[in-house]
């Protein structure tokens, strides 16, 4: 079988005019895993997102999450998202980007492009496998525990709220613990008095494929509450699944690592001044104009 290296044509103009280029991407590991694209027998070129295995074997979470569940959840659902995503983006502007970039671009401020569902679900599931581990559960420690106690009163109170959010997320979706750095409640609002306390831990419920990356939050932990995540092991008993998840599966170590990275990122961004409040008072400079290469300037009045 012939392997041919194909460099996808990236579109810097497209990137500049979109939000994500201004946001430092969070998940370096999600940088495009770009292997030489293979030319299959039929001559069809396939894009290169590869399946990412969980950091444990598929039966390692027994008896709390069965091998059978992982076989279908990872082996079918997640695989389908990756495969369909690849088919959707090959040869388009979304090709040659990291998974996170595809998620942010295809979210398109809420008017989602067709690739969003597959891209976000691929991202969400990778994040989910890494949020749990064999022998998980227990309590967080250190800075994570301190912030949980600061923002929720106590670990027990956090647990109750998180479980209640996950149980009441009607239909398909995800429930997240996220780090919300210096953001006001309303999108696009500029914080007039930024304080350390504005950087908070929050619990967020999202429907279907949506995740808190699209609001520029830093996700720390997620639980998948689509029925396929728990039906084989728990049938309709979602509350039982959520309890098991928190008591036996959640990897507080991973959550802690993610929090540290999120806090570093938040501090870096403050120092570099890439928040909108900085942009609201630009220096006296010629605003840069980005032209869409397709537009013939002579057509513009």
């Amino acid at each position, binding site marked *: 079988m012939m392997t041919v290296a194909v460099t996808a044509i990236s579109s810097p103009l497209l990137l500049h005019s979109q939000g994500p280029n201004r946001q430092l991407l969070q998940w370096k590991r999600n940088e495009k895993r770009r292997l030489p694209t293979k030319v299959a027998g039929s001559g069809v070129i396939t894009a290169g997102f590869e399946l990412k295995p969980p950091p444990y074997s598929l039966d390692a979470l027994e008896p709390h999450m069965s091998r059978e569940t992982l076989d279908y959840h990872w082996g079918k659902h997640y695989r389908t998202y990756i495969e369909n995503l690849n088919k959707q983006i090959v040869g388009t502007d979304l090709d040659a980007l990291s998974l996170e970039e595809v998620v942010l671009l295809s979210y398109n401020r809420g008017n989602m492009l067709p690739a969003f569902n597959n891209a976000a679900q691929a991202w969400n599931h990778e994040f989910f496998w890494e949020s749990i581990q064999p022998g998980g559960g227990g309590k967080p420690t250190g800075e994570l525990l301190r912030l949980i106690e600061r923002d929720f009163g106590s670990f027990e109170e956090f647990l109750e709220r998180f479980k209640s959010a996950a149980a009441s997320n009607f*239909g398909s*979706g995800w429930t997240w613990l996220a780090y919300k750095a210096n953001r006001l409640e309303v999108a696009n609002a500029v914080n007039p008095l930024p304080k350390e306390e504005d950087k908070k831990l929050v619990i967020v419920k999202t*429907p279907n494929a949506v995740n808190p990356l699209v609001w520029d939050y830093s996700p720390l932990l997620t639980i998948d509450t*689509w029925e*396929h995540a728990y039906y084989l092991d728990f*049938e*309709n008993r979602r509350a039982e699944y959520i309890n098991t998840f928190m008591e036996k599966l959640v990897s507080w170590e991973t959550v802690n690592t993610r929090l540290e990275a999120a806090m570093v990122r938040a501090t870096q961004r403050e120092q570099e001044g890439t928040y909108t409040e900085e942009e609201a008072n630009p220096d006296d400079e010629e605003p840069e104009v980005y032209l869409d290469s397709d537009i013939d300037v002579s057509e513009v009045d």
Partner: protein
Amino acid sequence: MTTVVFIIVLVIFAASLHDAGATTMDPCLESTKTASLPDLPYAYDALEPVISEEIMRLHHQKHHQTYVTQYNKALNSLRSAMADGDHSSVVKLQSLIKFNGGGHVNHAIFWKNLAPVHEGGGKPPHDPLSSAIDAHFGSFEGLIQKMNAEGAAVQGSGWVWLGLDRELKRLVVETTANQDPLVTKGTHLVPLIGIDVWEHAYYPQYKNARAEYLKNIWSVINWKYAADVFEKHSRDLDTN
């Protein structure tokens, strides 16, 4: 003396009238009927091998029952909130009522949309529904293809419907998210056939293969019910 007694009696009578007025003041709240889980019109294994007994039991006894229980609970809370004039709570309860009430409404229709093969399940409809289908979708197969395509494309949880638009007098294929009833897509829409594409409707048997579930379910669809509803509303339309 008798005047005093008469006045006292009058006062007591007036007081009792006032009380009577208070208790009958909110008849709508008093007589609100709660929902109850309807029986399946067939045995749990009657739709095998298209839909397994395991699914039918879980779907009816767990999922639908939970919608009924939670809906009644929400209605109860709504009743108290309305009686107290607690408008915040009245508003807050709306999403629970929509989720669970919608779940009850939709599933009550769904059980009637299905029938074992030996009771007519899968048998295509006769006129006038049959002609209406041909007129709007080209053919019976065309309708099925369209519904399967829409049903497979629903992201997350929801339903795919064949509905009758009473105002425009035509058939439509629609999808709704979560447990939204068809009427949320248009007040003039009447559900004829609804297919549940929540994962709980097929997962133990079909796993992630929703398309296969959709392909198979047509052999147990109860077109008699759809035709009856269609005819009833067509008659109503004619007499308007």
